[in-house]
């Protein structure tokens, strides 16, 4: 029963046409280096969609999405390493030799299978997010405590992964650039073009999926949980289940995102689980527009693209710009850029500068019963 104003769908349509036109044109317009960057940022848009589902819609600010992002990345990277490992001694990835490991740790065995890997990329993070979420939500931990807890979990994972040289190459992480897939080098231009297309298609699919989740009553329950959880409970819904499901979905999306990001950046390492990176994910959504799925995508892609352009020109200044952007959004555009546009922000700005003239009273009063504008 979601009610769409025609204006909102018009804005959405315009943005979608632009996005799709750009995606189609990008491979021929951009040099492969830029295309690769764009592909990475499109994959980051998928994790942003998840952040938007749990934060924008359900009101739970998770600062630990890096955990699930990195897990997806590790799954993909280990599959690629194992896929290439035939050339190495003992038939296992090279780095194991450095630590004297001669046999593949048992839990990596199934990752020799491509189907298992494709499933575990999203299912493993989703299960871990679900378990973690269920324990947290069942004990009615929310608000700031939830944020702190997710950040603490992130640090636990970060430190654990850093310390496990024998299992996952510790701090160094797993490289994917020089691995093979379908007889091609993963870091090669042709593969990177493919990964760009896969990222672009998966972003769109992820958007449809997220849209399907929030468009009707399920999404309304999520918004209800954000606005008044007690009311949801007294209306007969169990918020714990809803929160667990949505947190798990966000975890799964983060996993897919992490896998795509890994193959395009050439490495996965515990750096994916640093605190600033997980906070950046939240900033993309805040700037794009929390509670608007399209805003999450735009925020992730545009901020990251701006980041790479600014960093190339003025290496030291990006952090200041990002901080300033965040402050600007929090103070002036609390609903993010897309939320601002949807709420007639442009029109209001024109009033401020004095280009448009304000109506004298409420629009409904200026129109008589026949729908004519009163003189």
């Amino acid at each position, binding site marked *: *029963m*979601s*009610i769409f104003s025609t204006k909102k769908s018009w804005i959405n349509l315009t943005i979608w046409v632009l996005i799709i036109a750009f995606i189609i044109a990008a491979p021929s317009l951009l040099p492969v280096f830029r295309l690769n960057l764009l592909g990475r940022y499109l994959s980051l848009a998928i994790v942003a969609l998840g952040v938007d589902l749990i934060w924008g819609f359900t009101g739970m600010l998770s600062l630990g999405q890096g955990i699930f992002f990195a897990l997806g990345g590790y799954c993909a990277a280990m599959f690629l390493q194992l896929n290439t490992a035939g050339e190495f001694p003992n038939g296992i990835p090279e780095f194991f030799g450095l630590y004297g490991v001669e046999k593949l740790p048992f839990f990596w065995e199934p990752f020799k299978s491509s189907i298992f890997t494709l499933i575990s990329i999203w299912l493993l993070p989703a299960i871990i997010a679900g378990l973690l979420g269920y324990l947290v939500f069942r004990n009615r931990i929310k608000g700031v405590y939830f944020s702190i807890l997710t950040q603490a979990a992130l640090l636990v994972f970060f430190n654990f992964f850093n310390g496990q040289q024998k299992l996952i190459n510790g701090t160094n992480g797993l490289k994917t650039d020089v691995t093979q897939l379908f007889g091609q080098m993963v870091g090669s231009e042709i593969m990177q073009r493919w990964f760009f297309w896969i990222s672009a298609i998966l972003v769109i699919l992820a958007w449809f999926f997220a849209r*399907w*989740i929030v468009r*009707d*009553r*399920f999404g*309304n*329950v999520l*918004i*209800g949980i*954000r*606005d*008044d959880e*007690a*009311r*949801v*409970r*007294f*209306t*007969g*819904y*169990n*918020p714990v*289940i*809803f929160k667990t*499901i949505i947190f798990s979905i966000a975890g799964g999306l983060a996993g897919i995102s992490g896998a795509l990001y890994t193959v395009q950046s050439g490495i996965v390492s515990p750096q994916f689980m640093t605190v600033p990176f997980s906070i950046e994910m939240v900033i993309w959504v805040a700037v794009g527009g929390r509670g608007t799925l399209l805003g999450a995508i735009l925020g992730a892609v545009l901020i990251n693209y701006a980041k790479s352009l600014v960093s190339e020109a003025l290496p030291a200044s990006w952090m200041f710009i990002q901080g300033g952007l965040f402050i600007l959004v929090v103070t002036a555009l609390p609903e993010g850029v897309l939320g601002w546009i949807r709420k007639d922000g442009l029109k209001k700005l024109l009033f401020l500068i004095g280009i448009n003239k304000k109506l004298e009273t409420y629009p409904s009063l200026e129109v008589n019963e026949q729908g004519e504008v009163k003189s």
Partner: protein
Amino acid sequence: MTSPLLELKQISVSFEGFLALRDLNLVLNQGDLRAVIGPNGAGKTTFLDVITGKVLPTKGDVIFKEKSLLGQKEFRIARKGIGRKFQSPRIFENLSVQENLALSVSRPKTPFSLLINSLKVKHLDQIQHLMSIVNLQSKANISAGALSHGQKQWLEIAMLVGQDPDLLLVDEPVAGLTDEETDLTADLLKSLAGDHTVLVIDHDMEFIRRLDCPVSVLHQGHVLKEGSMSDIQKDPLVIEVYLGKTDEEEQ
């Protein structure tokens, strides 16, 4: 005689030594309309918290449809047929009136069913009916946060009815309403009684009188007196604790 719908037996609630309720007994039969009044701090809201599972009583038992409700989760109690309206209107402000009601009438209330099934025609009709009862048809697509205070109160009552509960617990439904709205609310609650059992908590004497139903007076956590409004108002004990002594008496 059939057994009562709701029975509170010797309920005591203690918050760190302070007894919010002590040995409270109350019986409601199917179709009853009952008003509960009492001065601030008499335990009126705590008493609703106990029924709806928000607060676990230190002692005593709550029997609903012959089964104990103690220790059950709030959402399960809600599904068993107890609806609660809060003191200040609590609705989903960012959802439209229609969406608010849709959440209330949906069955079953499981995540999977909400994702897969669309709302049944029966439920769509029910939403229209509920909106007509509380005069909100014209606001169907307006977000609930934009409603006036009185309309929010009514929307919450409509959401309550949409849950199709056997027992409606209504906490101060006329706080902040105009006289006219108060009268309409009283009529609305009276019309709901019979099909449902309704328990109303309020301060507003005019409103309670208009409900024209048995009244329980709560004082310091237990029921001081039960009876009709006119009986209650004559009772010297009630006058003393609740209505206060008149100036002459104090002198």
